[in-house]
């Protein structure tokens, strides 16, 4: 079992005989479509196996597949972040977990499983939120692979990697490979922050969760889902007032289930179950193990191609639709100029420490190449001056007389919005 391919080379310890036989067919010689920068042989193998540091976000359905694939492809320094613990319902597809692991952090259990099963691979888990980590943490990686089911977490990760790009530092551009599945559908995409379209650029392409008209729920329920939504959207706030519904609390789900079942009985609707109740209120889309496997494989192929330059990588969106037989489509999703994350413009402005907010606004409206009508200004933490509504204009008006240097640190960012701008303008303020 512990046979070593290259005896004496510490970094290859744990690699069993023939481990890289197949992978090396790709890495030992260039092919017709190989990137010109490809270093066949030891160079690329050394990078992949000894230097490349890869971050996996999510250790759930997609995450388990991604971790296993990356480890078997030869990535050896893998980090994984997940804030969840293992639930019994995960065990049918999240194959790194066993019954004894229920209640344990996904990231930790997944990391231990991979390290035990694939000797020589180091997996570093973090049990917590992606938001806990700062730029320095994300800077250490070469690549990030996302296997998340949360849109909010993805938007955060995407914006963080776009913001990380420093024009002075090539290392700051971290390719993001994003995978997502919904039942039989899925997508894998390669995001090169600031170069290609980003996650936020495609926000309006997302399938929105099915929502039923509230009057249907209230008056003419026909589906078990209508009864469950009646319990959660209308009855919960009516009975419990301001008490927040916790969809992870079995008592809360139990209450909703009881109310929904009574409603279903009244309207002679069948199919309200505990599992469906939980599924509807947590907006759980049935996860299909094979869809996860396909999408994770696509993501890991891209991670491998980008890390090794051994083949052309995906440009930039792969879509899989398995609901009516099997259909897949690859296309270039275009960057949106009005994207609030990667679009818009950034302008450097150098002013004196005595410069007032009012003069800054005047400067913005007069500057030939900017010419913004009625700009509203804010920093990431506070409003500087808002043109409307009247109450906010009045509340921020006293700032007009203040010095910009009192409100914005040297090198700080100011976000400008105005109806004449497609989205926003970012000002970087430095003082002379």
């Amino acid at each position, binding site marked *: 079992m512990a046979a070593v391919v290259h005896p004496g080379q510490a970094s290859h310890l744990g690699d069993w005989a023939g481990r890289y036989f197949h992978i090396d067919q790709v890495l030992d010689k260039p092919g017709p479509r190989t990137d010109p920068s490809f270093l066949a042989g030891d160079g690329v193998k050394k990078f992949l196996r000894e230097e490349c540091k890869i971050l996996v976000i999510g250790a759930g359905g997609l995450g388990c597949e991604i971790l296993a694939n990356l480890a078997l492809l030869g990535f050896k320094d893998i980090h994984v972040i997940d804030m969840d613990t293992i639930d019994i319902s995960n065990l049918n597809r999240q194959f790194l977990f066993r019954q004894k692991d229920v209640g344990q952090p996904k990231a930790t259990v997944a990391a231990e499983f991979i390290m035990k099963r694939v000797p020589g691979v180091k997996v570093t888990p973090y049990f917590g939120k992606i938001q806990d980590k700062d730029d320095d943490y994300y800077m250490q990686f070469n690549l990030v692979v996302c296997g998340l089911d949360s849109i909010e977490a993805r938007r955060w990760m995407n914006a963080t990697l776009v913001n990380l790009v420093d024009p002075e530092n090539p290392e700051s551009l971290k390719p993001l490979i994003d995978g997502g599945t919904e039942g039989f559908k899925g997508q894998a995409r390669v995001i090169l922050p600031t170069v290609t379209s980003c996650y936020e650029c495609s926000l309006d392409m997302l399938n929105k969760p099915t929502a039923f*008209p509230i009057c249907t729920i209230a008056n003419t329920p026909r589906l078990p889902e209508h009864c469950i939504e009646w319990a959660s959207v209308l009855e919960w*706030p009516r009975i419990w007032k301001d008490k927040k519904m916790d969809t992870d609390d079995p008592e809360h789900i139990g209450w909703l289930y009881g109310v929904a079942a009574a409603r279903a009985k009244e309207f002679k609707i069948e199919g309200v179950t505990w599992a469906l109740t939980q599924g509807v209120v947590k907006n759980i889309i049935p996860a299909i193990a094979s869809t996860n496997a396909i999408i994770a494989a696509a993501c890991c192929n891209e991670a491998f191609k980008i890390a090794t330059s051994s083949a052309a990588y995906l440009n930039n969106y792969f879509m899989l639709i398995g609901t009516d037989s099997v259909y897949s489509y690859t296309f270039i999703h275009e960057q949106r100029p009005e994207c609030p994350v990667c679009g818009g*413009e950034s302008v450097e402005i150098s002013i004196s420490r005595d410069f007032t907010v009012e003069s800054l606004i005047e400067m913005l409206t007069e500057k030939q190449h900017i010419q913004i009508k009625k700009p509203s200004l804010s*920093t990431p933490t506070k409003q500087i001056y*808002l043109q409307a509504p009247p*109450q906010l204009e009045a509340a921020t008006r006293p700032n007009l007389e203040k010095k910009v240097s009192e409100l914005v640190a040297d090198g700080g960012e100011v976000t400008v*919005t105005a109806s004449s701008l497609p989205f926003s303008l970012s000002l970087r303020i430095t003082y002379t």
Partner: protein
Amino acid sequence: MIKIWSMKKNEEAANKKKPKTSAAQIRVQKDLTELDLPATMQTNFPDPADLLNFTLTITPDEGMYQGGAFTFSFVINTNYPHDPPKVKCLPKIYHPNVDLEGNVCLNILREDWKPVLNLNSVMVGLQYLFLEPNAEDPLNKEAAEDLRRNRDAFIANVRSSMKGSTVKGITYERVTV
């Protein structure tokens, strides 16, 4: 590792470094500062530094709800505009599309919400409910039934409910200005 930087250099956009202001934050600032509200609608921010929680008061200047002031709470979460704003009618009112808990039946607040819509579209939609109450999408079934059966009687109920009277056993809040 693929050399992305060389592609990057070819683009004329090497200085796109952006602040940490979240996309939701920028979008809300843009939506609010570009609101184009008629005199019949007014926003109020309990904490002017918090753009995510505010109220909107509609005072219709025509139609059967003329003379009333109807206040709605708006709660915007950090996943805006993927998620629609959460809107509730604060006073208890007699209206076919608003229930006694303040839930509002307006399609763009739920099933027809899209990120391309904005706060202005929601506010205009709310105002429209007072100009054209809709008996087809009832949340207050009694009110909808009244409107369908006898428009004049419905209008009389609206008038008295707005003064804070009891209509069919339910006491409504006084909303007249």
